[in-house]
């Protein structure tokens, strides 16, 4: 068993190492504008990680995670704008406060069936923009609040300019802040999932009654999952405000929650590396498709304009449906089952114990 674990472990750790190095080095070779796009993808990845903890590991579906992001973003923006708190300091505050709200939200959510929870959170996502508009003095109403993007600190900027020969922009600095948060939160999620709380939450997802019967504190862990998930959402929201430079009701439409769901589903619910893949996909799909289409000269301009508007929704919809029908474990699940299939082929038909958990047949 131990030997097998060592044999199985390296590829995974290697992969993590390569990805991290890539993400650290990436901005030195791309434009500042692209770096800000990648920062947003990383931020989405954080929120999706949170959503994954909730859906994939405790079986509660939230369709309103955009609302938690909105809360985190507004907490940061209000602290920074009205109370002149350093924005970077507001990030953990926003995370913790949103986490607390999520934890409290999780208590009544315990009483709801998964279906009702989905319904209530969806309604929350739809209503969020109009709720934000209300205390206009605090939230800036329809206008929202501008967020001043910080300059990179001297030391970091110096290192960066020695490598690239150009000064570091605040977009690039925000990218690194987001990356730092993402890595820390990735590490936290990884640890939670692989230890007792993760096992408890998986047990709850797979059957609450059985989990309770084997001594798992079902209520405790479900609310904990909600709180944790909201914490991730809050941090992501706070960073989101930072990277967009302002927060307004329209920053957090229902489609943001859908985008998160797409990312989670594409990456694979109940997987920790999935969110990154899912976020990159969900973030860049509409951007790329909307840039590609208008550049095709053979497509009439009017159609191109419509595709630009309607394209993301159509492709998100098709992706959600197709993935749920054909690959309910998402890209990571697909890769995993492909990998184990390949392994089996290579080792011959006599299937041996691979030392790996079999992929979850259905993670929702």
């Amino acid at each position: 068993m131990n030997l097998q674990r060592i044999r199985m472990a390296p590829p995974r750790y290697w992969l993590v190492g390569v990805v991290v190095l890539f993400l650290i080095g990436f901005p030195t070779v791309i434009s500042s504008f692209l770096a800000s796009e990648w920062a947003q993808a990383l931020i989405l990845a954080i929120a999706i990680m949170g959503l994954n903890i909730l859906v994939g590991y405790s079986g509660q579906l939230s369709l309103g995670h955009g609302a938690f992001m909105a809360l985190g973003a507004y907490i940061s923006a209000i602290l920074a704008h009205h109370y002149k708190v350093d924005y970077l300091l507001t990030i953990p505050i926003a995370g913790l406060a949103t986490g607390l709200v999520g934890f409290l939200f999780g208590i009544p959510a315990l009483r709801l069936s998964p279906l009702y929870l989905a319904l209530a959170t969806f309604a929350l996502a739809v209503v969020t923009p109009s709720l934000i508009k209300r205390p206009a003095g605090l939230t800036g109403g329809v206008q929202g609040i501008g967020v001043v993007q910080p300059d990179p600190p001297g030391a970091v900027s110096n290192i960066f300019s020695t490598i690239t020969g150009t000064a570091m922009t605040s977009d690039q600095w925000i990218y690194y802040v987001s990356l730092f948060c993402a890595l820390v939160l990735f590490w936290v999620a990884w640890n939670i999932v692989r230890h007792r709380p993760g096992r408890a939450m998986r047990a709850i997802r797979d059957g609450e009654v059985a989990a309770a019967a084997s001594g798992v504190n079902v209520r405790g862990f479900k609310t904990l999952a909600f709180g944790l998930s909201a914490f991730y959402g809050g941090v992501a929201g706070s960073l989101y405000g930072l990277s967009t430079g302002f927060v307004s009701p329209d920053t957090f439409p229902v489609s943001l929650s859908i985008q998160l769901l797409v990312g989670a589903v594409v990456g694979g619910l109940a997987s920790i590396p999935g969110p990154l893949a899912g976020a990159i996909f969900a973030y860049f799909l509409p951007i790329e498709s909307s840039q590609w289409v208008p550049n095709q000269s053979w497509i009439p301009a009017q159609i191109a304009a419509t595709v630009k508007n309607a394209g993301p929704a159509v492709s998100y919809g098709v992706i959600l449906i197709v993935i749920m029908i054909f690959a309910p474990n998402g890209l990571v699940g697909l890769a995993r089952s492909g990998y184990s299939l390949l392994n089996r082929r290579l080792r011959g038909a006599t299937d041996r114990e691979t030392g790996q958990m079999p992929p979850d047949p259905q993670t929702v």
Partner: protein
Amino acid sequence: MQEFLQQLVGGLAIGGIFASLALALVLIYNAMGLVNFAQGEMAMLATFVAYALVSQGMSYWIAFPVTLVLAFAGGIGVQRLVIKPVERAPILTLVIITLGLATLVNGLAGFIWGYVPRSFPSPFSSESVDLVGVFVSYRDLGVIAVSGIVLLAVYLLLQRTTVGLTLRAAAHHPEASRLLGVHVSWMLALGWGLASAVGAVSGIMVAPILLLEPNMMQSIIIYAFAAAVLGGIESPPGAVVGGLIVGVTINLAGAYLPFVGGDLQLAVGLAIIIGVLILKPNGLFGRAAVRRV
């Protein structure tokens, strides 16, 4: 007092619209224990179809039933194509699929018709009539009448016909129904068709009020959720009563609660959903759910 009564009638009219959409949700919930998040978007698409027919010169009262038939066929098509392959999947998988469907239909409508709001014809004049001292618009009365007729028709279909009987049997007792020769899978498709047609009525009724555009139903579906949950999500009469209560509530709240006004009416819908789910999850007419182990 008079203004109050006018608000009340207006609330009943809009409530009738919510009731139709809520009834569509209930029909699908009964058939497969699923909330169809795409119900509103399907209704929106049907409304665009009606719009296209009318702008081709078809008279409103012909376009209306034609649209319902098309919506019915569309609902069956959706069930066969998208839902049937995953009939036995976990409920959250189905929820995500209907959400995907909602997103897809929304995008498609945007793709075909764009996002510029269009005015949609109403067959009823917006003039008012004096009903024992209360001025009520013909439009409100017309909406109430149409909703009432549709709801009554659904009731008669379900309760008084053999098809309705087998539909109900297939929804509640699929195994037993199969042994009685009921084609359960087709009954589910029929349920989707029926729900789609009933939902389309709400879209066609609300379009003259809200202006037609792809996101038109986004708020209406929240009110319909509220109505269905309030009535007890498995109860067709509950959906109707729930719809009327929600319609009147948001109308009165918008008119008389200064902090609600026009823009927080949607929040009232959310409050109803969350309040009912927490305090009385079975709604007004629902039975206590049996928790299956």
